[in-house]
């Protein structure tokens, strides 16, 4: 059964649709990531799920029940905000106990649940501190603990890692994922960071301009992008798109290699003029253009750091190729079309 289902959700601000007809469902225990650029409507959609914002039309179902008219407090959700929304005047213990107190939980049970949540997130030594005395990572855990004690049907997380520095973010990411796998609570996670999305999501929903562009597992999203937006939004550097008759042709930089590195027969060869090279330690990024195939953006190739390093220099022209099975075809509207169309 779906823990959360959204049906044809729209949200209009004036003439603008912040959310335009999004339907999706979150399965029991699933970690669903809403991924999209800033201002694409993903946070608005999350707030609609939470009931903090009301949708212009459409239905929200949580645990099978229509909650359109149900206030946030009765929806069985818990939310972690971008800057955590901790109560500055309360200690860590009382922050975590807050949702239980509003439900008039008996004192013993309250104590037990808060202790359990604090132990699970290894913050039991912080119980009497105030939020301002905590580091970013600790605050995030307090916010998670507060969400956890409610025993919600679904967690809603709004970019909870964006306030952490890069190093902490990596460890917080794996902790968060591990935590979710321990408690097995369905989770909707909003982010604009594709690394977070790919690394954490059981499924990813890519949103742009208020519309759901594609929903699927990280592999599906990466290997079979539904349109040019999804293709170029994921991947660093993003997928190359070059013009072809009736649309465009896409290929990932890591699949675009010097001809001699590829064997087999089904290859699409392209003469690549290298303008610039970047050495990134484990890999090299080559920037340039393909002769005879105009592209709106610079074409990139991603090579293992030392592969063919002596043959490739900036200013050179070299024969590159892509396996035909790794080519993606898009029509004039940017939608994916069947492979084997005219090159």
């Amino acid at each position, binding site marked *: 059964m779906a823990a959360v289902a959204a049906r044809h959700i729209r949200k209009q601000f004036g003439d603008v649709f912040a959310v335009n007809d999004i339907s999706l469902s979150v399965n029991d225990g699933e970690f669903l990531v809403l991924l999209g650029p800033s201002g694409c409507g993903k946070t608005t959609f999350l707030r609609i799920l*939470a*009931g*903090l914002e009301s949708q212009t039309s459409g239905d929200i179902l949580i645990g099978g029940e229509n909650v359109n008219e149900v*206030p*946030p*407090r009765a929806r069985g*959700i*818990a*939310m972690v*905000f*971008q*800057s*955590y*929304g*901790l*109560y*500055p*005047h309360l200690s860590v213990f009382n922050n975590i106990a*807050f*949702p239980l107190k*509003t*439900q008039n939980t008996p004192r013993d049970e309250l104590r037990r649940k808060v202790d359990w949540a604090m132990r699970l997130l290894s913050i039991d030594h912080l119980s009497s501190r105030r939020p301002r005395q905590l580091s970013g990572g600790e605050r995030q855990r307090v916010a998670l603990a*507060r969400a956890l004690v*409610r025993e919600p049907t679904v967690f809603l997380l709004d970019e909870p890692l964006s306030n952490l520095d890069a190093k902490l973010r990596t460890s917080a990411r794996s902790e968060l994922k591990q935590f979710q796998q321990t408690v097995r609570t369905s989770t909707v996670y909003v982010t604009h960071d594709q690394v977070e999305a790919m690394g954490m999501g059981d499924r990813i929903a890519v949103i742009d301009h208020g519309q759901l562009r594609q929903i699927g597992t990280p592999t599906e999203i990466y290997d079979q992008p539904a349109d040019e937006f999804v293709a170029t939004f994921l991947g660093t550097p993003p997928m190359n798109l070059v013009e072809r008759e009736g649309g465009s042709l896409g290929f990932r930089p890591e699949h675009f290699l010097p001809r001699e590195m590829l064997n087999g027969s089904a290859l699409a060869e392209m003469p690549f003029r290298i303008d610039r090279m970047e050495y990134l330690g484990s890999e090299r990024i080559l920037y340039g253009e393909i002769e005879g195939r105009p592209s709106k953006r610079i074409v990139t190739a991603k090579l293992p750091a030392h592969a063919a390093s002596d043959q490739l220099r900036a200013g050179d022209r070299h024969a590159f190729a892509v396996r035909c099975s790794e080519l993606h075809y898009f029509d004039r509207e940017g939608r994916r079309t069947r492979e084997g169309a005219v090159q």
Partner: protein
Amino acid sequence: MTTMARRIAGTGSFYSAVVLLVLFAAFPFYWMLITTFKQDGDLYNLQSIPYWFNESPTMEHIDYLFTDTLFLRWLGNSALIGVCVVAITLVVSLPAGYSLARMPGRAAENLGIGIFLTYLVPPTLLFLPLSRVISLLGLQDSLWSLVLVYPTFTIPFCTWLLMGFFKSVPREIDEAAIVDGCTMVGAFVKTILPLSLPAILTVIIFAFTLTMQEFVYALTFISSSDQKPITLGVATDLVRGDVYYWGELMGAALISSIPVAIAYNLFLDRFISGITGGAVKG
């Protein structure tokens, strides 16, 4: 050596500026203090030095103030009016400021400015229509008329001040409380109010001092001595024709300004953080 000399000169000029400022600010209080305890002969003798006692100090003015005038009654009236006005102001301004701070769109900002503008209309213009309202309500010559009228200038300013403060409290805090099981009012009471203590204190001090110093409305609406607040009672009952009871006047002014001065000093830090809270926290 020159840097040393420069430093001394710098410190010296800093402290002399401070001393000058303190003298300037404290002089009226000093004047009130010595006038209160001077004998009438000393006060009216043009030959004597006005800055110190030429005859021995006396308690006669204080005695007169407490025994032969309604001074204590006026103080009580002022305190009663102050407490009522502060209560009314808080009851109206807290929810109003919160709603304006959380209202989406530009409407809230315009409403806020509109509310603040009403504060700028001078009482000398407003007392005409308001006196009509007061007489219609049958409150003329009663201190309750002031309890009704003073909020017309405390509420706009305090609403505006609180709005600025509430805006500085991240919206995520009330939203977290709403998700965590509170109603909107519950979220306000449990999370926003405790965080707004400096602002609330500022409102209390501001509203209270404004009512303590108001004169025009009191003069317009009240004529019976036993209904007068301190500002009016002192000025009308201790100046009889062209006879000024200087000792009593100064004594009354001094005594009534002490509680306010103490309140300000105790809460000065919080007062400042209340006033500037919206500005620095963004």
